[in-house]
């Protein structure tokens, strides 16, 4: 079993899906010859040809709109948007066109596309290269939204996303791209969209998180005093959301902390807190806490670490919640 980082596991998933299904097609800025600015699609154009792995003109609206057209025509389009900030010019096609497609056509003309987008801060990038807009897309009916934080899960999730008959936004936490490797089976497997993963079991409180924050939460959980044990849930699918796994855990621990990089207000933490309140009110021993980014524009990188939730900030919320 190969040891792969996130970049290589996603590359492997793309290669396997391109091999498996002739209707899979990759498009985006620099994805071909250059293998993407993160080298994530490296080698794929060479292997599958320009007709299936295509460099496009520099236009996110064009990429997304063309992907919708490909999907309408029966292809499985996998557009890459170079950085999450550039979903902006593609927003109309993704939200107003792709997401409504099935409903509007009464299921006749569907939109099976998988939009791959690097996301999040912490890599000292320029403006518009460090945002966390996932809640915007979760709030859009008709889109599925996933964010894989680990190589093995990413491979299975991406396979599911590409095979899914509906549009899926596949966010890739760029801070994790090359941060570690793990065993990734090279055989064909999928991970169900809508399924969270419990990364660590614990009895005293539940941490719900996703993306690069997963690792800061694990770090914070590790640093807890011995008498507190935390359950760590990697949500992984942001929509559909795995309510059962959250409810099962929080009903048992009675305490929950939600952690995300995205701004606080109307972030997913708000939704998850409300779900916990709806389902677990009688089990709760403490108010649900959120440790998030702030309701400000993601700062340029000199201050990005003052914006991003770090293990110290998370740890404090964990201890407060446990002590409540």
């Amino acid at each position, binding site marked *: 079993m190969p040891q792969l980082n996130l970049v290589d596991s996603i590359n492997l998933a793309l290669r396997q899906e391109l091999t498996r299904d002739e209707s899979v097609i990759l498009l985006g800025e620099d994805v071909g010859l250059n293998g993407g600015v993160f080298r994530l699609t490296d080698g794929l154009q060479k292997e599958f040809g320009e007709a299936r792995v295509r460099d496009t003109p520099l236009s996110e609206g064009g990429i997304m709109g063309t992907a919708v057209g490909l999907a309408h025509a029966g292809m499985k389009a996998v557009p890459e948007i170079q950085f999450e900030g550039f979903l902006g*010019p593609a927003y109309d096609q993704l939200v107003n066109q792709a997401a409504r497609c099935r409903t509007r056509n009464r299921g006749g003309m569907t939109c099976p596309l998988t939009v791959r987008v690097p996301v999040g801060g912490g890599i*000292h990038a320029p403006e518009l290269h460090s945002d966390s807009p996932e809640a915007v897309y979760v709030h859009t009916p008709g889109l599925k939204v996933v964010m894989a934080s680990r190589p093995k899960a990413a491979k299975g999730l991406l396979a599911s996303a590409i095979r899914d008959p509906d549009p899926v936004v596949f966010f890739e936490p760029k801070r994790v791209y090359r941060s570690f490797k793990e065993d990734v089976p090279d055989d064909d497997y999928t991970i169900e969209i809508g399924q969270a993963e419990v990364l660590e079991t614990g009895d005293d409180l539940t941490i719900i998180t996703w993306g690069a924050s997963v690792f800061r939460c694990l770090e914070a959980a590790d640093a807890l005093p011995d008498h507190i044990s935390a359950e760590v849930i990697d949500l992984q699918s942001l929509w559909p959301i795995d309510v059962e796994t959250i409810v099962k855990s929080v009903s048992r621990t009675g305490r929950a902390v939600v952690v995300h990089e995205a701004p606080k207000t109307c972030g997913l933490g708000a939704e998850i807190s409300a779900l916990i309140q709806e389902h677990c009110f009688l089990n709760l021993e403490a108010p649900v*806490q*959120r440790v998030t980014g702030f309701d400000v524009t993601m*700062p340029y990188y000199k*201050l990005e670490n003052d*914006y991003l939730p770090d293990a110290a900030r998370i740890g404090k*919320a964990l201890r407060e919640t446990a*002590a409540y």
Partner: protein
Amino acid sequence: MPTHDVFNGSVSRVEILSADGSIDEQLADEVRDVLDDEAVVAAYREMLVARELDDAAYRLQRSGRMGTFPQNKGQEAGPLAAAMTLIAGHDHVVPSYRENIALFHLGLPMHQILLHWMGDERGNDIDPKLGISPICISIGAHLPHAAGIGWKLKIDNDKHGTDRVCMAFFGDGATSEGAFHDGLNFAATGDAPVVFVCQNNGWAISVPTEKQTRSQTFAQKALAYGMPGFQADGNDLFASFKVCRDAVRHARAGNGPALVELTTYRIADHTTVDDASRYRSKEEHERGVASDPLIRTRRYLEARGQWNDDLEKQEKERATRIVKEVIATAMEIEKPGKSDIFDYAFATTPRELERQRETRRTGSLGQSPRQSTLSRVEADEAVTV
């Protein structure tokens, strides 16, 4: 009814100073009113400083003192010539990120560019008197802004008899974005005095011109929007100046926008995180390096007895000195305070944001004081500012 042409258009290319330093005297005479020997010497000195800053920025990035930096190397002549057709503080500039020299020429303190790429928003804190918009990272997004600024300038020009223009810079890749088309169309239909300057360096990261567009030129795109399109050798100070001045004169005279395409070559990688050898041939690169505007301008000045090795050495030393000072200025600026991230989100900070600022200070978020167990968690664990 016979068919007949309903549209005919053409784009001509201007070249004055060739790569070996020889010059078309007749065409050069047309711009010598401004580009006399003294002005060309001054321009060359500016190019030396800009080149030195570019190399220094690269070294800062490599030594971990700066984030990603898009080098301007090789593209100095066109933007400088373009800026020379403007009146600092009178006209407005909407930049992208590969024309630092134009901004310096119009008065932007050089350390602000470094500050920007060092991840500090204060790099964008540009004196409003300069009429320079912040660097635009989102490709093409600034071109409709130029149309809007041009609209306002037109209102002022009509009312006060002024002749101000707006100039926007962008790359060849940007012409594929919807915002490019919006910008041109809005400026044209609004008769806005906007000069769109496309620096066609042949590449948008790894995507070559021929995959960006099937048009033979970028200049011809102007014709579809009902404005003139000019093309010039962007490594040629004289040709670039000529077409930019023609375009600016057109706009200043109240005839609406114009588009200028300056063909050039990006000598360096796209940015400090790019590796152009993955997609660009060695031969092409060597050709590009040979067309370096600095070499060309120097040859011209040498042929006219205006430059020599001693001057070159002396001026390079001056450039090094200036850039050292610029770097020192940028490095001496202290990191902004942590609370800075809340200060500029709104004109008046809403109460909820003030609360978030406070929770940032105390280290946890969302705790209502009545629910907080802060007292039970050791006080010294609070994350301090």
